[in-house]
């Protein structure tokens, strides 16, 4: 076997292992659709493993008081996300009115938030653990 083939095999192996890791950590999905005629549609899917890293890269001066404000709530966020991940799947909050419908439900180890209002529909979903990790990075 040539060195080139060995390197290619190694790279492919790394790619597969990396892909499995990224897949296992889940993804953050944001989908916003405005209901106006030329309304915008924003669709974003980010691997959850990127979240804590991205949070780390945010310039400290942009966060200012955030660590002081979030800091006391970190244990609560950590415990809540762990406990929620353990809970059975199901709806946590449902609000229905003439103007909007809001759903927050838990499925697997992720939290799903759906808002359907007169102006737009918003869907956000994220793995609970990744969100807790990102928040703790922001609070550092």
């Amino acid at each position: 076997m040539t060195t080139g083939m060995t390197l290619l095999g190694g790279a492919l192996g790394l790619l597969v292992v990396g892909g499995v890791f990224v897949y296992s950590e889940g993804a953050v999905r944001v989908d916003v659709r405005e209901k106006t005629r030329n309304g915008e549609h924003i669709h974003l899917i980010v691997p959850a493993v990127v979240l804590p890293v991205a949070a780390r890269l945010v310039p400290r001066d942009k966060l200012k008081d955030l660590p002081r404000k979030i800091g006391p709530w970190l244990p609560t966020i950590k415990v809540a996300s762990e406990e929620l991940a353990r809970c059975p799947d199901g709806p946590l909050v449902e609000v229905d009115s003439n103007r909007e419908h809001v759903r927050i439900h838990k499925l697997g180890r992720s939290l799903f938030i759906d808002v359907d209002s007169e102006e737009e529909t918003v869907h956000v979903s994220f793995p609970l653990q990744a969100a807790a990790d990102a928040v703790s990075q922001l609070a550092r």
Partner: protein
Amino acid sequence: MFAFAALAMPADRWIHVRVTESGPDGDRVRINIPLSLAEAVLPTIKADKFCKGKVKLEGHAFDQVDLRAILEAVRKAQDNQYVTVESKHENVEVAKAGEFLRIKVHEDREGAGKAAGAQKAGSTVDIKIPFKVANALLSGSSDELDVLAAIRALGEYPNLELVTVNDENDSVRIWVDSSNYAD
């Protein structure tokens, strides 16, 4: 072995809150929270008057009344309606029914219910608290309510209707069961 362990574990208890406004424009809110989540999260919250699952009651006269003694006396007594307050617009009843303390409040709406055959209008509040939960709530010092202990005590009841409020416009229901859906 794990299957047996899972079978032996008590089912998750959920506290449900449902608020329904009447009429075509009425809002509807349903909240389902696992008691285990509340139990895990409450000790971590350190807010102004809320710490380690306990609420500080400042400025209340609870230290002048021995609520625990009153509660214990009622718990040991026979089932009966212990307090009845009847006024022109409001009736309040406090009763003991088995292991539960029941509080019923009916408030008449001004001028309502005058028409023949009209339903009794106004608001009705029905609260049903197990003595075990009430005791747990009062298990801290005299100027605090131990919410965490009360939540733990609530977990012992498979199905429990805690609060029902009905008036012409809204209805509120708070209950505990082992289903993760409100209905």
